[in-house]
């Protein structure tokens, strides 16, 4: 009685652990990217993204106000005094230790007073307020103060501002985003439409050579697309399509079709024969059967292939490089833009993280919106 159906398998916990591991494996970098994209360059270099929610301790070099500025110093009694706050407005930071020399940045605690040359004295409070006095009139630049401050967690939208809305053509992803959409949407729809028709014919219509056609489709599945890049590009150039959106749509369609036809045909073949025969007896033509019965019932298969094709074309770099992107760079897509950013902005992680997240945001959205179609069984109740 140990192995009756319905009893929990001994492997249950292995499955559970694997699922958790997979989820973490996927979640960790994605969340990291998302969090990093909302942090400043300083925050990224100071601490990992997993500490983004906690206050960070930073060493900063700040300056008191320049004595030469008008109204900066005041004569109080016989002392020249400059008062102010070291931080910019709206900065909430707590200073723990500070110093006036780069060799001893932790010489004083907050609230203590440092004595410098010529009888100058400076006191720095926890919140950054300082009082700098001197018996003689001060001149030159403001006193440098090295502080070790704890700043509260802070997130910024400035990376997105820069990546999406700045006119800077090296950083901006906006143009590339729309280019990618222009490539992806037709490159998803065209093969699905063609494949749906083909799959119906290969699954349910009788014509000579059907088996050979199916065998050919299966054969084409294993042809690597790199094989076709050069000949296809030569063909495009030869017939005048050249490099451009039309070329990349056609290329994606061609490369996507074998799998699309194969998947959809296998799904359609599995639809109950009775339903189709019944529709035939009910008076439907092949086209009506296709549009009114097959297409609605094949929705899960169409949706799952659409998701696959969308993700491939969205993340594609190779086909776009070969068939689309020309010397002007007007038609660059996001993947290519990120490659270029790696070159020009290799050190600016905040820009790279933001650009990367912009490029994965749409696939994530598509996946979460469509995933129910991957699992929904539309056939419940049609046949017993």
């Amino acid at each position: 009685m140990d192995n009756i159906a319905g009893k929990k398998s001994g492997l249950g916990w292995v499955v559970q652990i694997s699922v958790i591991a997979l989820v973490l494996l996927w979640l960790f970098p994605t969340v990291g990217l998302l969090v990093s994209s909302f942090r400043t360059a300083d925050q990224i270099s100071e601490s990992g993204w997993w500490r983004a929610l906690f206050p960070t301790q930073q060493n900063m070099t700040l300056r008191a106000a320049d004595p030469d500025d008008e109204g900066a110093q005041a004569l109080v009694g016989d002392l020249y005094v400059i008062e102010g706050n070291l931080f910019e407005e709206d900065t909430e930071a707590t200073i723990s230790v500070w110093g006036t020399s780069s060799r001893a940045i932790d010489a004083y605690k907050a609230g203590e007073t440092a004595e410098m040359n010529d009888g100058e004295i400076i006191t720095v409070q926890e919140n950054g307020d300082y009082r700098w006095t001197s018996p003689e009139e001060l001149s030159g630049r403001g006193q440098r103060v090295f502080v070790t401050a704890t700043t509260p967690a802070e997130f910024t939208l400035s990376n997105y501002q820069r990546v999406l809305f700045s006119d800077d053509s090296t950083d901006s992803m906006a143009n590339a985003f729309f280019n990618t959409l222009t490539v992806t949407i037709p490159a998803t729809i065209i093969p699905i439409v063609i494949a749906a028709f083909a799959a119906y014919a290969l699954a349910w219509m009788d014509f000579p050579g059907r088996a050979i056609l199916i065998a050919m489709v299966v054969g084409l599945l294993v042809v690597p697309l790199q094989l076709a890049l050069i000949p296809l590009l030569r063909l495009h150039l030869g017939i005048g399509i050249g490099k451009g959106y039309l070329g990349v749509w056609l290329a994606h369609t061609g490369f996507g079709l074998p799998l699309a036809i194969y998947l959809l045909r296998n799904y359609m073949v599995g639809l109950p024969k009775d339903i189709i025969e019944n529709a035939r007896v009910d008076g439907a033509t092949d086209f009506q059967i296709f549009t009114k019965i097959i297409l609605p019932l094949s929705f899960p298969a169409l949706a799952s292939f659409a998701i696959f094709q969308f993700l491939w074309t969205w993340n594609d770099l190779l086909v776009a490089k070969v068939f689309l992107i020309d010397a002007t760079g007007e038609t660059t897509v996001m993947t290519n833009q990120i490659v270029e950013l790696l070159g020009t902005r290799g050190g600016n992680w905040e820009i790279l993280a933001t650009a990367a997240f912009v490029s994965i945001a749409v696939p994530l959205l598509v996946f979460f919106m469509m995933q129910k179609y991957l699992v929904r069984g539309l056939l419940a109740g049609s046949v017993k």
Partner: protein
Amino acid sequence: MANVKLKNVVKNYGSLEVVHGINLDVDHNEFVVFVGPSGCGKSTTLRMIAGLEKISGGEISIGDRVVNELPPRARNISMVFQNYALYPHMTVRENLGFTLRIAKKPQSEIDQAVAEASAILSLDPYLDRRPGELSGGQRQRVAMGRAIVRHPDIFLFDEPLSNLDAKLRAQMRVEIKKLHQKVQTTIIYVTHDQVEAMTLADRIVIMRDGYIEQQGTPLEVFEKPVNTFVATFIGSPPMNLLHGRADNSGKNITLDDGVNVAMPSRLAGKYADKDIIFGFRADNIMPVGHTLPQGDESVEIDMTVTLTEPLGAETLLFGEIGGTQVQAKMLNPRIVKPGEKLTFQIDLEKCHVFDAQSEMVLD
């Protein structure tokens, strides 16, 4: 509103011939049932009439039209499938109206036809449900409703009740019979269940291995089976068949274990010195004292009961004669223990005699 004519209809799959030249006339408004064991070609024949299978030879006409080359949609037929074949993505209402919708009928006409069909089959409470939310019997009714809506010339039923449990099957049988009375249309119905065939049919067509063995009204095929196959296939329990030999006079039969019975008087003297099969139904062999009809001719035979099946009003008794199992009926039953030896009477008038070689009936 049409009759159906099959003339020498043949079907082969490659070199394998599965239907061998069938001839059949179905009259207008007749309820014809094809019955036979699996693989006898009954469903194939039905599908050829529907146009779902190509005809390899012969001619099928519906009304006055030869429909050999017509696609199903041009034949004005409706078919009810074993698996119901409802469109899972449509509500019951949409399922019912589908055939009219694709025929581009006006909405008012569709609504009216759907309402009519739903009234006939009491589907009103379910019109806005999907097939997935219906029980087996309800789905079957929707499938029938979908067939009615079209007002077809012919209804084709392909084993429509075989997925239902016994109780529902009996109910639906009645509904189909009622439906036939209401809509007055030619019906061709395929089943492997002889009870369905007997109860529903105006005419039963019994098929085996791609041939029609016999056709006739339920009583005809029950009372006058043309061969041993029909004799055992129709009627429950099946007819008892005992091998034997008619003697020189043709008036006596010696069964395999040496038991002698008289040749029924209508056949006496006709077949002398011949190997025969002697057949009688359980209804015509009963223990002495428990038999109701006492015909003019009967013969007594002793048999040891090996098994009993009490059914309430009657009990089925199993025994053996000459190594062949025999089923007998006992009316006004008393308790019989296995091993008990009883004397049975066989009503000779209702017995059948078949040729042992050809298995065809002798009369």
